Protein backbone atom coordinates (compact mmCIF):
# COMPACT_ATOMS: atom_id res chain seq x y z
CA UNK A 1 0.00 0.00 0.00
CA UNK A 2 1.46 3.39 -0.99
CA UNK A 3 1.65 5.89 1.84
CA UNK A 4 1.49 9.43 0.69
CA UNK A 5 2.06 12.48 2.77
CA UNK A 6 -0.84 14.27 4.27
CA UNK A 7 -1.38 17.56 2.45
CA UNK A 8 -1.61 19.46 5.73
CA UNK A 9 1.44 18.03 7.40
CA UNK A 10 4.62 16.21 6.64
CA UNK A 11 3.44 13.07 8.43
CA UNK A 12 2.91 10.08 6.18
CA UNK A 13 -0.76 9.30 5.69
CA UNK A 14 -1.93 6.20 7.55
CA UNK A 15 -3.15 3.47 5.21
CA UNK A 16 -6.89 2.88 5.40
CA UNK A 17 -7.78 -0.43 7.06
CA UNK A 18 -9.51 -2.98 4.85
CA UNK A 19 -12.96 -4.23 5.78
CA UNK A 20 -11.45 -7.45 7.09
CA UNK A 21 -9.45 -5.53 9.69
CA UNK A 22 -12.43 -3.56 10.97
CA UNK A 23 -14.25 -4.86 14.01
CA UNK A 24 -17.88 -5.96 13.83
CA UNK A 25 -19.24 -2.95 15.70
CA UNK A 26 -17.61 -0.54 13.26
CA UNK A 27 -18.96 -2.51 10.30
CA UNK A 28 -22.54 -2.34 11.53
CA UNK A 29 -22.12 1.38 12.21
CA UNK A 30 -21.25 1.83 8.54
CA UNK A 31 -24.27 -0.24 7.53
CA UNK A 32 -26.39 2.09 9.67
CA UNK A 33 -25.01 4.98 7.62
CA UNK A 34 -26.27 3.30 4.45
CA UNK A 35 -23.19 1.47 3.19
CA UNK A 36 -23.70 -1.98 1.71
CA UNK A 37 -20.20 -3.44 1.43
CA UNK A 38 -19.67 -3.68 5.21
CA UNK A 39 -22.78 -5.87 5.35
CA UNK A 40 -21.20 -8.29 2.86
CA UNK A 41 -18.23 -8.58 5.22
CA UNK A 42 -20.59 -9.24 8.15
CA UNK A 43 -22.27 -12.00 6.12
CA UNK A 44 -18.97 -13.68 5.31
CA UNK A 45 -17.92 -13.56 8.99
CA UNK A 46 -21.17 -14.86 10.47
CA UNK A 47 -22.75 -17.18 7.90
CA UNK A 48 -20.65 -20.18 8.98
CA UNK A 49 -21.07 -19.63 12.69
CA UNK A 50 -24.80 -19.07 12.42
CA UNK A 51 -25.35 -22.06 10.16
CA UNK A 52 -23.31 -24.32 12.41
CA UNK A 53 -25.15 -23.24 15.56
CA UNK A 54 -28.61 -23.45 14.01
CA UNK A 55 -27.97 -26.79 12.28
CA UNK A 56 -26.95 -28.38 15.55
CA UNK A 57 -30.19 -27.12 17.02
CA UNK A 58 -32.67 -28.06 14.30
CA UNK A 59 -30.82 -30.91 12.47
CA UNK A 60 -32.25 -30.06 9.05
CA UNK A 61 -29.76 -28.43 6.65
CA UNK A 62 -32.39 -26.63 4.55
CA UNK A 63 -34.15 -25.28 7.63
CA UNK A 64 -30.85 -24.27 9.20
CA UNK A 65 -29.91 -22.37 6.05
CA UNK A 66 -33.31 -20.67 5.95
CA UNK A 67 -33.06 -19.56 9.58
CA UNK A 68 -29.46 -18.38 9.16
CA UNK A 69 -30.51 -16.27 6.17
CA UNK A 70 -33.51 -14.94 8.08
CA UNK A 71 -31.17 -13.90 10.89
CA UNK A 72 -28.92 -11.97 8.53
CA UNK A 73 -31.89 -10.36 6.78
CA UNK A 74 -33.16 -9.14 10.14
CA UNK A 75 -29.71 -7.85 11.03
CA UNK A 76 -29.77 -5.75 7.85
CA UNK A 77 -33.38 -4.56 8.09
CA UNK A 78 -33.10 -3.61 11.76
CA UNK A 79 -29.48 -2.45 11.73
CA UNK A 80 -30.45 0.94 13.15
CA UNK A 81 -31.72 -0.76 16.32
CA UNK A 82 -28.25 -2.00 17.31
CA UNK A 83 -26.55 0.07 19.98
CA UNK A 84 -22.98 -0.56 21.08
CA UNK A 85 -24.07 -1.43 24.61
CA UNK A 86 -23.39 -5.11 23.95
CA UNK A 87 -21.13 -6.82 21.46
CA UNK A 88 -22.45 -7.22 17.95
CA UNK A 89 -22.10 -11.03 18.12
CA UNK A 90 -24.38 -11.05 21.17
CA UNK A 91 -27.05 -9.18 19.21
CA UNK A 92 -26.78 -11.48 16.18
CA UNK A 93 -26.98 -14.66 18.23
CA UNK A 94 -29.92 -13.29 20.19
CA UNK A 95 -31.84 -12.93 16.93
CA UNK A 96 -30.77 -16.42 15.83
CA UNK A 97 -31.68 -18.01 19.17
CA UNK A 98 -35.13 -16.43 19.17
CA UNK A 99 -35.79 -17.64 15.64
CA UNK A 100 -34.68 -21.16 16.54
CA UNK A 101 -36.80 -21.22 19.69
CA UNK A 102 -39.89 -20.01 17.81
CA UNK A 103 -39.42 -22.63 15.13
CA UNK A 104 -38.91 -25.43 17.60
CA UNK A 105 -41.95 -24.33 19.54
CA UNK A 106 -44.04 -24.52 16.35
CA UNK A 107 -42.59 -27.92 15.62
CA UNK A 108 -43.48 -29.26 19.05
CA UNK A 109 -47.11 -28.13 18.59
CA UNK A 110 -47.55 -30.33 15.54
CA UNK A 111 -49.30 -33.61 16.43
CA UNK A 112 -46.99 -36.59 16.41
CA UNK A 113 -47.62 -39.47 14.04
CA UNK A 114 -48.65 -42.67 15.81
CA UNK A 115 -46.76 -45.78 14.85
CA UNK A 116 -48.08 -49.28 15.53
CA UNK A 117 -44.74 -50.85 16.40
CA UNK A 118 -42.70 -47.93 17.55
CA UNK A 119 -38.95 -48.28 17.42
CA UNK A 120 -37.10 -47.49 20.65
CA UNK A 121 -36.67 -43.80 21.27
CA UNK A 122 -33.60 -42.33 19.61
CA UNK A 123 -32.25 -41.15 22.94
CA UNK A 124 -32.08 -44.71 24.18
CA UNK A 125 -30.08 -46.05 21.26
CA UNK A 126 -26.35 -45.94 21.83
CA UNK A 127 -24.15 -44.27 19.29
CA UNK A 128 -22.88 -46.80 16.79
CA UNK A 129 -19.32 -45.93 15.92
CA UNK A 130 -17.38 -48.11 13.48
CA UNK A 131 -16.19 -51.33 15.08
CA UNK A 132 -12.48 -50.98 15.71
CA UNK A 133 -12.13 -54.70 16.33
CA UNK A 134 -12.74 -55.60 12.69
CA UNK A 135 -10.00 -53.38 11.32
CA UNK A 136 -8.11 -51.24 13.78
CA UNK A 137 -6.51 -49.33 10.97
CA UNK A 138 -9.86 -48.26 9.58
CA UNK A 139 -10.04 -44.51 9.67
CA UNK A 140 -13.16 -42.67 10.60
CA UNK A 141 -13.98 -40.36 7.78
CA UNK A 142 -14.52 -36.72 8.60
CA UNK A 143 -18.12 -36.69 7.43
CA UNK A 144 -18.93 -39.78 9.39
CA UNK A 145 -17.34 -38.22 12.45
CA UNK A 146 -19.30 -35.03 11.91
CA UNK A 147 -22.55 -36.98 11.65
CA UNK A 148 -21.81 -38.84 14.89
CA UNK A 149 -21.00 -35.63 16.73
CA UNK A 150 -24.20 -33.99 15.44
CA UNK A 151 -26.18 -36.99 16.63
CA UNK A 152 -24.51 -36.82 20.03
CA UNK A 153 -25.37 -33.11 20.22
CA UNK A 154 -28.98 -33.69 19.22
CA UNK A 155 -29.48 -35.89 22.26
CA UNK A 156 -28.73 -33.07 24.65
CA UNK A 157 -32.01 -31.48 25.80
CA UNK A 158 -32.72 -28.20 24.03
CA UNK A 159 -32.54 -26.01 27.13
CA UNK A 160 -29.01 -27.23 27.84
CA UNK A 161 -27.96 -27.37 24.19
CA UNK A 162 -28.35 -23.63 23.45
CA UNK A 163 -25.91 -22.32 26.09
CA UNK A 164 -23.64 -25.31 25.47
CA UNK A 165 -23.26 -24.60 21.73
CA UNK A 166 -22.95 -20.86 22.25
CA UNK A 167 -20.05 -21.51 24.64
CA UNK A 168 -18.29 -24.46 23.02
CA UNK A 169 -18.62 -23.54 19.35
CA UNK A 170 -19.27 -19.80 19.14
CA UNK A 171 -17.16 -19.06 22.24
CA UNK A 172 -19.44 -16.45 23.69
CA UNK A 173 -18.65 -15.51 27.28
CA UNK A 174 -20.97 -16.49 30.10
CA UNK A 175 -22.21 -12.91 30.37
CA UNK A 176 -22.97 -12.81 26.64
CA UNK A 177 -24.81 -16.13 26.85
CA UNK A 178 -26.76 -14.67 29.75
CA UNK A 179 -27.82 -11.74 27.54
CA UNK A 180 -28.66 -13.95 24.56
CA UNK A 181 -30.72 -16.48 26.47
CA UNK A 182 -32.14 -14.26 29.20
CA UNK A 183 -31.06 -16.75 31.87
CA UNK A 184 -29.34 -15.98 35.16
CA UNK A 185 -25.58 -16.43 35.30
CA UNK A 186 -25.83 -19.37 37.70
CA UNK A 187 -28.34 -21.07 35.42
CA UNK A 188 -26.01 -20.61 32.44
CA UNK A 189 -23.16 -22.22 34.39
CA UNK A 190 -25.19 -25.20 35.54
CA UNK A 191 -26.74 -25.83 32.11
CA UNK A 192 -23.37 -25.76 30.39
CA UNK A 193 -22.01 -28.16 33.00
CA UNK A 194 -24.92 -30.58 32.54
CA UNK A 195 -24.70 -30.36 28.75
CA UNK A 196 -21.00 -31.17 28.83
CA UNK A 197 -21.66 -34.16 31.06
CA UNK A 198 -24.43 -35.36 28.77
CA UNK A 199 -22.30 -34.87 25.67
CA UNK A 200 -19.48 -36.83 27.25
CA UNK A 201 -21.84 -39.72 27.98
CA UNK A 202 -23.11 -39.63 24.39
CA UNK A 203 -19.66 -39.77 22.80
CA UNK A 204 -18.13 -42.23 25.26
CA UNK A 205 -18.24 -45.15 22.78
CA UNK A 206 -16.50 -42.94 20.26
CA UNK A 207 -13.70 -42.09 22.65
CA UNK A 208 -12.61 -45.74 22.70
CA UNK A 209 -11.90 -45.67 18.97
CA UNK A 210 -8.15 -45.78 18.42
CA UNK A 211 -8.12 -43.95 15.13
CA UNK A 212 -10.34 -41.14 16.38
CA UNK A 213 -7.50 -39.10 17.81
CA UNK A 214 -5.47 -39.43 14.63
CA UNK A 215 -8.37 -38.25 12.50
CA UNK A 216 -9.07 -35.37 14.87
CA UNK A 217 -5.45 -34.24 14.76
CA UNK A 218 -5.48 -34.46 10.98
CA UNK A 219 -8.61 -32.30 10.77
CA UNK A 220 -7.14 -29.74 13.18
CA UNK A 221 -3.88 -29.62 11.22
CA UNK A 222 -5.81 -28.97 7.98
CA UNK A 223 -7.79 -26.22 9.64
CA UNK A 224 -4.60 -24.55 10.90
CA UNK A 225 -3.06 -24.72 7.43
CA UNK A 226 -6.16 -23.09 5.93
CA UNK A 227 -5.97 -20.28 8.46
CA UNK A 228 -2.31 -19.62 7.63
Amino acid at each position, binding site marked *: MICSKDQFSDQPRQPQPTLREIRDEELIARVQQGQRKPFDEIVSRY*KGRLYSFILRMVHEPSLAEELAQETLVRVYIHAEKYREIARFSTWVFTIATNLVRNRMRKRSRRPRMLRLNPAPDEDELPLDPPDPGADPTQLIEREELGALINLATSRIPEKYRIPFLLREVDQLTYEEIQQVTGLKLGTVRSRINRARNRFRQNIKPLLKNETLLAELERIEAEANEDKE
Partner: protein
Amino acid sequence: MRCGRAREWLSLTMDSQLPPDKTISLEGHLEKCTGCRSYRDDLLLGQRLLRATEPEVSENFEWRLQLKLNQTLQEAAQSATLPWENPRWSLSRWLGTVGVSMAVSCAVIVALAMLVLPTSPSRDPQGGGTGPAVIAHHDAPMSSSSIDADRTDRRSLLSQNSGSTIWPRPVSLPNSGLGVRPANRGFPNSERFWVEIRNAINSRQAQIDRLRQENLLLTVERDDMRKQLVELKAQLDIKDSDQLDLQRED
Protein backbone atom coordinates in the same frame (compact mmCIF):
# COMPACT_ATOMS: atom_id res chain seq x y z
CA MET B 1 -13.10 -32.59 47.93
CA ARG B 2 -15.76 -34.87 46.45
CA CYS B 3 -15.68 -35.87 42.80
CA GLY B 4 -19.14 -34.37 42.14
CA ARG B 5 -17.96 -30.92 43.22
CA ALA B 6 -14.67 -31.37 41.35
CA ARG B 7 -16.50 -32.17 38.10
CA GLU B 8 -18.65 -29.02 38.44
CA TRP B 9 -15.53 -26.97 38.96
CA LEU B 10 -13.83 -28.63 35.99
CA SER B 11 -16.51 -27.22 33.69
CA LEU B 12 -15.98 -23.73 35.16
CA THR B 13 -12.21 -23.90 34.91
CA MET B 14 -12.45 -24.73 31.19
CA ASP B 15 -14.06 -21.29 30.75
CA SER B 16 -11.79 -19.44 33.21
CA GLN B 17 -14.73 -18.90 35.54
CA LEU B 18 -13.20 -20.50 38.67
CA PRO B 19 -11.56 -18.24 41.28
CA PRO B 20 -7.81 -18.86 41.86
CA ASP B 21 -8.16 -20.40 45.33
CA LYS B 22 -10.68 -22.98 44.11
CA THR B 23 -8.52 -23.69 41.07
CA ILE B 24 -5.66 -24.65 43.39
CA SER B 25 -7.80 -27.04 45.43
CA LEU B 26 -9.18 -28.55 42.22
CA GLU B 27 -5.69 -29.17 40.89
CA GLY B 28 -4.82 -30.84 44.19
CA HIS B 29 -7.81 -33.18 43.79
CA LEU B 30 -6.95 -33.99 40.16
CA GLU B 31 -3.44 -35.09 41.16
CA LYS B 32 -4.97 -37.77 43.36
CA CYS B 33 -8.12 -38.79 41.43
CA THR B 34 -7.67 -40.67 38.13
CA GLY B 35 -11.44 -40.75 37.51
CA CYS B 36 -11.69 -36.94 37.52
CA ARG B 37 -8.55 -36.64 35.40
CA SER B 38 -10.10 -38.96 32.84
CA TYR B 39 -13.33 -36.90 33.03
CA ARG B 40 -11.36 -33.73 32.35
CA ASP B 41 -9.59 -35.30 29.35
CA ASP B 42 -12.95 -36.48 27.95
CA LEU B 43 -14.43 -32.97 28.26
CA LEU B 44 -11.46 -31.41 26.48
CA LEU B 45 -11.58 -34.04 23.74
CA GLY B 46 -15.31 -33.46 23.32
CA GLN B 47 -14.66 -29.74 22.92
CA ARG B 48 -12.07 -30.40 20.24
CA LEU B 49 -14.42 -32.77 18.41
CA LEU B 50 -17.20 -30.20 18.37
CA ARG B 51 -14.98 -27.47 16.99
CA ALA B 52 -13.31 -29.72 14.42
CA THR B 53 -16.55 -31.05 12.94
CA GLU B 54 -18.39 -27.78 12.35
CA PRO B 55 -20.74 -28.16 9.39
CA GLU B 56 -20.01 -26.06 6.32
CA VAL B 57 -22.49 -23.73 4.72
CA SER B 58 -23.50 -24.35 1.09
CA GLU B 59 -21.89 -22.42 -1.75
CA ASN B 60 -25.06 -20.67 -2.91
CA PHE B 61 -25.90 -19.43 0.59
CA GLU B 62 -25.02 -15.80 -0.20
CA TRP B 63 -26.91 -15.83 -3.48
CA ARG B 64 -30.06 -17.07 -1.78
CA LEU B 65 -29.56 -14.56 0.99
CA GLN B 66 -29.46 -11.79 -1.60
CA LEU B 67 -32.77 -13.01 -3.11
CA LYS B 68 -34.38 -13.21 0.30
CA LEU B 69 -33.15 -9.73 1.24
CA ASN B 70 -34.45 -8.19 -1.99
CA GLN B 71 -37.81 -9.86 -1.53
CA THR B 72 -38.08 -8.61 2.05
CA LEU B 73 -37.18 -5.06 1.06
CA GLN B 74 -39.78 -5.08 -1.72
CA GLU B 75 -42.47 -6.35 0.64
CA ALA B 76 -41.53 -3.70 3.20
CA ALA B 77 -41.81 -0.98 0.53
CA GLN B 78 -45.24 -2.20 -0.56
CA SER B 79 -46.62 -2.46 2.91
CA ALA B 80 -45.70 1.14 3.67
CA THR B 81 -49.02 2.94 4.07
CA LEU B 82 -50.16 6.48 3.67
CA PRO B 83 -50.70 8.16 7.02
CA TRP B 84 -54.48 8.20 6.77
CA GLU B 85 -54.56 4.49 5.96
CA ASN B 86 -52.85 3.67 9.24
CA PRO B 87 -55.47 2.76 11.85
CA ARG B 88 -53.32 4.47 14.46
CA TRP B 89 -53.42 7.69 12.52
CA SER B 90 -55.58 10.33 14.07
CA LEU B 91 -56.71 13.67 12.82
CA SER B 92 -55.46 15.49 15.87
CA ARG B 93 -51.96 14.12 15.38
CA TRP B 94 -52.08 15.10 11.72
CA LEU B 95 -53.21 18.61 12.60
CA GLY B 96 -50.44 18.83 15.13
CA THR B 97 -47.71 18.13 12.63
CA VAL B 98 -48.61 18.43 9.00
CA GLY B 99 -51.45 20.86 9.47
CA VAL B 100 -49.37 23.45 11.29
CA SER B 101 -46.58 23.29 8.77
CA MET B 102 -49.05 23.62 5.89
CA ALA B 103 -50.71 26.59 7.56
CA VAL B 104 -47.35 28.28 8.00
CA SER B 105 -46.35 27.67 4.40
CA CYS B 106 -49.71 29.02 3.15
CA ALA B 107 -49.22 32.16 5.20
CA VAL B 108 -45.75 32.61 3.72
CA ILE B 109 -47.09 32.19 0.17
CA VAL B 110 -49.86 34.73 0.76
CA ALA B 111 -47.38 37.21 2.19
CA LEU B 112 -45.07 36.76 -0.78
CA ALA B 113 -47.96 37.13 -3.19
CA MET B 114 -48.98 40.39 -1.54
CA LEU B 115 -45.45 41.71 -1.82
CA VAL B 116 -44.95 40.61 -5.36
CA LEU B 117 -48.31 41.37 -6.96
CA PRO B 118 -48.81 44.99 -8.02
CA THR B 119 -51.22 47.05 -5.89
CA SER B 120 -51.98 49.81 -8.45
CA PRO B 121 -51.79 50.31 -12.17
CA SER B 122 -48.42 51.26 -13.55
CA ARG B 123 -47.67 53.78 -16.28
CA ASP B 124 -46.36 52.33 -19.47
CA PRO B 125 -42.84 53.73 -19.72
CA GLN B 126 -43.27 53.99 -23.47
CA GLY B 127 -46.39 56.13 -23.17
CA GLY B 128 -48.82 53.49 -24.23
CA GLY B 129 -50.77 53.40 -20.95
CA THR B 130 -51.84 50.21 -19.36
CA GLY B 131 -52.70 47.68 -21.93
CA PRO B 132 -54.02 44.20 -21.74
CA ALA B 133 -51.65 41.77 -20.22
CA VAL B 134 -49.73 39.54 -22.49
CA ILE B 135 -49.48 36.12 -21.12
CA ALA B 136 -46.47 34.30 -22.32
CA HIS B 137 -46.06 30.58 -22.14
CA HIS B 138 -42.67 29.54 -20.93
CA ASP B 139 -41.62 25.96 -20.34
CA ALA B 140 -38.36 26.81 -18.68
CA PRO B 141 -38.42 28.42 -15.25
CA MET B 142 -37.65 32.08 -15.05
CA SER B 143 -33.90 32.46 -15.02
CA SER B 144 -32.10 34.57 -12.48
CA SER B 145 -30.63 36.71 -15.26
CA SER B 146 -34.11 37.78 -16.39
CA ILE B 147 -35.07 38.58 -12.79
CA ASP B 148 -31.92 40.63 -12.45
CA ALA B 149 -32.76 42.35 -15.74
CA ASP B 150 -36.15 43.33 -14.36
CA ARG B 151 -34.60 44.75 -11.24
CA THR B 152 -32.06 46.66 -13.26
CA ASP B 153 -34.78 48.01 -15.50
CA ARG B 154 -36.73 49.13 -12.51
CA ARG B 155 -33.80 50.88 -10.99
CA SER B 156 -32.85 52.63 -14.24
CA LEU B 157 -36.44 53.63 -14.82
CA LEU B 158 -36.66 55.18 -11.43
CA SER B 159 -33.42 57.05 -11.86
CA GLN B 160 -34.46 58.42 -15.25
CA ASN B 161 -37.69 59.75 -13.95
CA SER B 162 -36.46 61.28 -10.76
CA GLY B 163 -38.43 64.23 -9.76
CA SER B 164 -41.74 62.93 -10.96
CA THR B 165 -43.86 60.55 -9.16
CA ILE B 166 -44.22 57.40 -11.05
CA TRP B 167 -45.25 54.00 -10.01
CA PRO B 168 -42.51 51.41 -10.00
CA ARG B 169 -42.63 48.99 -12.83
CA PRO B 170 -44.23 45.77 -11.69
CA VAL B 171 -42.00 42.75 -11.29
CA SER B 172 -43.25 39.69 -13.09
CA LEU B 173 -44.39 36.77 -11.03
CA PRO B 174 -41.92 33.90 -10.76
CA ASN B 175 -42.70 30.91 -12.85
CA SER B 176 -45.15 28.72 -10.95
CA GLY B 177 -44.00 25.65 -12.80
CA LEU B 178 -47.19 25.59 -14.81
CA GLY B 179 -45.61 27.32 -17.74
CA VAL B 180 -47.60 30.48 -17.32
CA ARG B 181 -46.36 33.95 -16.53
CA PRO B 182 -48.35 37.12 -16.42
CA ALA B 183 -47.20 40.08 -18.44
CA ASN B 184 -44.58 42.52 -17.31
CA ARG B 185 -46.78 45.51 -18.02
CA GLY B 186 -49.63 46.72 -15.87
CA PHE B 187 -52.14 44.49 -14.28
CA PRO B 188 -52.49 40.98 -15.67
CA ASN B 189 -55.74 40.33 -17.45
CA SER B 190 -57.13 38.36 -14.54
CA GLU B 191 -59.75 36.43 -16.46
CA ARG B 192 -57.43 35.21 -19.14
CA PHE B 193 -54.72 34.50 -16.53
CA TRP B 194 -56.92 32.21 -14.51
CA VAL B 195 -58.20 30.49 -17.63
CA GLU B 196 -54.65 29.67 -18.55
CA ILE B 197 -53.98 28.45 -15.02
CA ARG B 198 -57.00 26.17 -15.25
CA ASN B 199 -55.85 24.75 -18.57
CA ALA B 200 -52.41 24.06 -17.17
CA ILE B 201 -53.90 22.25 -14.17
CA ASN B 202 -56.03 20.09 -16.49
CA SER B 203 -53.04 19.12 -18.58
CA ARG B 204 -51.09 18.19 -15.46
CA GLN B 205 -54.01 16.13 -14.24
CA ALA B 206 -54.04 14.25 -17.54
CA GLN B 207 -50.33 13.62 -17.15
CA ILE B 208 -50.88 12.26 -13.63
CA ASP B 209 -53.62 9.93 -14.88
CA ARG B 210 -51.35 8.62 -17.58
CA LEU B 211 -48.59 7.97 -15.06
CA ARG B 212 -51.04 6.13 -12.79
CA GLN B 213 -51.98 3.83 -15.65
CA GLU B 214 -48.35 3.15 -16.38
CA ASN B 215 -47.81 2.40 -12.70
CA LEU B 216 -50.63 -0.15 -12.76
CA LEU B 217 -49.11 -1.89 -15.75
CA LEU B 218 -45.71 -2.00 -14.06
CA THR B 219 -47.30 -3.41 -10.91
CA VAL B 220 -48.86 -6.25 -12.88
CA GLU B 221 -45.54 -6.93 -14.56
CA ARG B 222 -43.79 -6.96 -11.20
CA ASP B 223 -46.29 -9.46 -9.77
CA ASP B 224 -45.72 -11.78 -12.74
CA MET B 225 -41.99 -11.62 -12.22
CA ARG B 226 -42.42 -12.34 -8.54
CA LYS B 227 -44.45 -15.46 -9.34
CA GLN B 228 -41.71 -16.61 -11.70
CA LEU B 229 -39.14 -16.07 -8.96
CA VAL B 230 -41.12 -18.20 -6.50
CA GLU B 231 -41.40 -20.98 -9.08
CA LEU B 232 -37.67 -20.87 -9.80
CA LYS B 233 -36.91 -20.99 -6.09
CA ALA B 234 -39.13 -24.02 -5.66
CA GLN B 235 -37.37 -25.76 -8.55
CA LEU B 236 -34.00 -24.95 -7.02
CA ASP B 237 -35.07 -26.34 -3.64
CA ILE B 238 -36.26 -29.54 -5.29
CA LYS B 239 -32.95 -29.86 -7.11
CA ASP B 240 -30.99 -29.31 -3.90
CA SER B 241 -32.99 -31.86 -1.96
CA ASP B 242 -32.51 -34.39 -4.79
CA GLN B 243 -28.77 -33.79 -4.63
CA LEU B 244 -28.80 -34.28 -0.86
CA ASP B 245 -30.68 -37.56 -1.30
CA LEU B 246 -28.11 -38.72 -3.84
CA GLN B 247 -25.28 -37.84 -1.48
CA ARG B 248 -26.91 -39.76 1.36
CA GLU B 249 -27.33 -42.80 -0.84
CA ASP B 250 -23.64 -42.61 -1.74
